[in-house]
C-alpha cells in the first residue's frame, strides 16, 4: 500500500476515535448553557488536570516549539522560561477566581469583570478583546492540522482543503459534546501526545547521532551561536526574553478559556494543588526543541520551520508510525480548538450580544446564538489561516499580547479595593491599543522589549493614575445587579 494512504488512514482512525469519545461523553447530559460551558461545576482534580493540560498543550507545543528551535534557535527558550511561571501565577489567582465564580455563578471571564466592576460596557469590551485575540490562537490549531495532513499525505493533499475538512470535524465536535466531552477526549490526546513526544524526542537524536548529548555536541561544533540568544535573529536578545517571559507568565491564565476551565473545578483547593504539580507536565516540551535542533543538521534548508518536527518523523519512521504522530498532533489541535471556539462563542452571545444589543433574550436563545456563533468564529479563523504566512509561535505571541492586558483588571480586582472601573477600563484600552499599534506597524520588539509587555506597563500606569482621580468604589457588590448580571 501507498505510504501516504497508510499514514492518512491511521490519522483518520485516531481522529474518529477521539470524536466518538467526545460525542459519547457529551450525549448523556442535557446540554443547557451551564453544562455546555462549565460542566456543571463538578470536576475533581483529575478531570481539571486533564482539561487544563488539554487546553494548554496545543499545536503550538507540538509543532510551533520545534519550529522556532529550528528557525530561530536560542530565543525559543522563552517557552521553557514561562512554562513554570504561569503555574506559579495561577497559584495566587485561580482559587480566588474560582471562589468568585461559585459565589456569583460566573460562566465566562467577562462575567467576572461584569460582577466586579459593575459595567456591562467593560464586560462587553473584555468579551470583544477575548474573541478577537482567540482567533490567532485558533488559527494556530487550524494551520497545525493543515500541516499534519499536508506532510502525512506526502504533499498529495494541499493545506487548504485539509484545513477545511478538519475544521468541519472540530465544529461538529464542539456543538455536540460541550466541555465535558472535550475533557474526556483530552485523556486520549494527552496519552498519545506524551507517547509521541517522548518517542520522537529520544528516537530521532539516537537514530542520527547516537544520543541527545552527541547531537548537541555536533550542533555546538557547527553553529554554537544558534543555541544562545539571540540565535538566528538579530533583535530577540535578553531584554526581549525577560519582557516576553514576564508578559506570558503573568498573562497566560488571562486566556478566557482558562477561566471557563477554572469554573468547572469542584473547589479552589483543587486548582491550588493543580498549580503545584502541573510544571512536571511541561517536561515533554524540551523534547520538541531537541527534534527541532536535530532537524537543523539532518534537514537543513526547510522553508517553513514549523514543518521540521513532522518532516523529521516522516524521514525517520515507517508510514504507520508517522500516522500515529500525526493523529496525536491532530487531536492536540482539535481539543484546544474546540474549547477556544466554545469560549469565544459563549463570550460573544452572552457578554457582547445580549447585554448591548438584545437585552430581552432568554437563556435558551443565548445558548442557540452561541452555537450559531461557533460557525462564524470557525470560518473567521479559517480565512485568516488560509491567507497568513507567519510562524505558529509568532501568532500565539500576538494573542498573548492582547489577553495579557486583562491581568491588571483581574489581579487588582481580586486584591485591591482602591482600583476603580474607569481606571481598569482606561488601562485596558490603552494597553490593547499600544500592543496592537506596535505590532501592526512592525515595531515589535521596540528597543528589545516585547510590544505586549510595553502595553502592559502603560496599562498598569493608566489604571493607577485614573483610579487615583476617580472616587473609590469600595470593592463592593450589590445584590440587585446580580440577577441582571449573570443569568
Amino acid at each position, binding site marked *: 500500500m501507498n505510504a501516504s494512504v497508510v499514514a492518512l488512514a491511521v490519522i483518520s482512525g485516531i481522529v474518529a476515535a477521539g470524536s466518538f469519545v467526545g460525542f459519547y461523553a457529551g450525549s448523556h447530559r442535557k446540554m443547557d448553557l451551564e453544562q455546555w460551558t462549565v460542566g456543571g461545576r463538578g470536576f475533581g482534580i483529575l478531570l481539571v488536570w486533564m482539561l487544563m493540560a488539554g487546553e494548554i498543550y496545543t499545536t503550538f507545543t507540538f509543532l510551533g516549539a520545534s519550529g522556532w528551535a529550528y528557525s530561530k534557535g536560542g530565543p525559543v527558550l522563552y517557552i*521553557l522560561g514561562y512554562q513554570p511561571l504561569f503555574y506559579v501565577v495561577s*497559584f495566587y489567582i485561580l482559587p480566588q477566581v474560582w*471562589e468568585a465564580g461559585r*459565589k456569583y455563578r460566573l460562566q465566562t471571564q467577562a462575567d467576572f469583570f461584569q460582577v466586579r466592576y459593575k459595567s456591562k460596557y467593560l464586560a462587553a469590551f473584555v468579551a470583544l478583546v477575548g474573541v478577537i485575540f482567540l482567533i490567532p490562537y485558533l488559527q494556530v490549531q487550524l494551520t497545525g492540522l493543515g500541516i499534519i495532513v499536508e506532510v502525512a499525505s506526502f504533499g498529495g493533499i494541499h493545506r487548504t482543503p485539509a484545513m477545511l475538512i478538519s475544521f468541519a470535524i472540530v465544529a461538529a465536535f464542539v456543538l455536540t459534546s460541550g466541555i465535558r466531552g472535550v475533557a474526556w477526549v483530552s485523556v486520549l490526546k494527552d496519552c498519545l501526545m506524551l507517547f509521541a513526544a517522548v518517542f520522537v524526542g529520544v528516537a530521532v537524536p539516537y537514530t542520527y547521532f547516537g544520543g541527545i548529548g552527541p547531537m548537541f555536541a555536533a550542533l555546538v561544533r557547527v553553529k554554537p551561536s544558534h543555541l544562545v540568544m539571540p540565535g538566528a535573529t538579530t533583535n530577540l536578545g*535578553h531584554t526581549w526574553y525577560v519582557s516576553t517571559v514576564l508578559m506570558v507568565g503573568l498573562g497566560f491564565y488571562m486566556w478566557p478559556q482558562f477561566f471557563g476551565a477554572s469554573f468547572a473545578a469542584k*473547589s479552589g*483547593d483543587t486548582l491550588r494543588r493543580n498549580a503545584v504539580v502541573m510544571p*512536571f507536565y511541561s517536561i515533554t516540551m524540551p523534547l520538541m526543541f531537541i527534534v527541532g535542533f536535530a532537524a537543523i543538521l539532518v534537514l537543513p534548508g526547510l522553508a517553513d520551520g514549523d514543518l521540521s518536527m513532522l518532516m523529521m518523523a516522516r524521514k525517520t519512521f515507517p508510514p504507520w508510525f508517522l500516522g500515529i504522530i500525526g493523529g496525536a498532533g491532530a487531536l492536540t489541535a482539535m481539543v484546544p480548538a474546540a474549547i477556544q471556539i466554545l469560549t469565544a462563542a459563549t463570550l460573544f452571545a452572552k457578554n457582547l450580544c445580549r447585554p448591548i444589543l438584545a437585552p430581552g433574550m432568554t437563556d435558551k436563545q443565548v445558548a442557540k446564538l452561541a452555537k450559531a456563533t461557533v460557525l462564524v468564529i470557525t470560518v473567521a479563523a479559517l480565512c485568516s489561516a488560509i491567507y497568513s504566512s507567519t510562524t505558529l509561535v509568532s501568532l500565539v505571541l500576538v494573542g498573548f499580547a492582547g489577553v495579557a492586558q486583562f491581568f491588571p483588571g483581574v489581579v487588582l480586582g481580586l486584591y485591591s479595593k482602591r482600583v476603580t472601573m474607569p481606571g481598569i477600563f482606561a488601562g485596558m484600552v490603552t494597553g490593547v491599543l499600544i500592543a496592537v499599534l506596535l505590532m501592526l506597524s512592525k515595531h515589535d520588539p521596540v528597543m528589545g522589549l516585547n510590544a505586549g509587555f510595553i502595553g502592559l506597563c502603560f496599562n498598569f500606569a493608566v489604571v493607577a493614575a485614573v483610579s487615583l482621580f476617580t472616587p473609590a468604589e469600595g470593592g463592593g457588590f450589590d445584590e440587585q445587579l446580580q440577577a441582571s448580571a449573570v443569568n
Partner: protein
Amino acid sequence: MSVQSQPFLKSGGSVRKPSIGAILFGLIPFAAVCFSVSLWDRVYPIVLGLPFNFFWLISWLLLTPLCMWGAYRLEAHRDRVLNRGDGAP
C-alpha cells in the same frame, strides 16, 4: 430591594489572600528563570550532554513544583489555624 454592600470575596471562604511567605516562595522561580537570564544563557559548561541554558531551564521545571509545594504547605497550615480560630470545623 435593599442595596446590600459586601466585599467582592468574603475573607471567610476557604481561600484567602496569600501570605508573604507563600509569595516569597513564588518569587524564587521568577528570579531563577526570568531575571537572571544573562547569568545562565550560555552553552558551557555542558551538563548531562545539554547546553547549560537548556539544562538550567529543565531543572527549574522540576524545582518549581518544590517551591510551590512549600507555598502550598504554608497556605494549608494557615487555613487550618484560621479555621480553628473561627471555631469552624
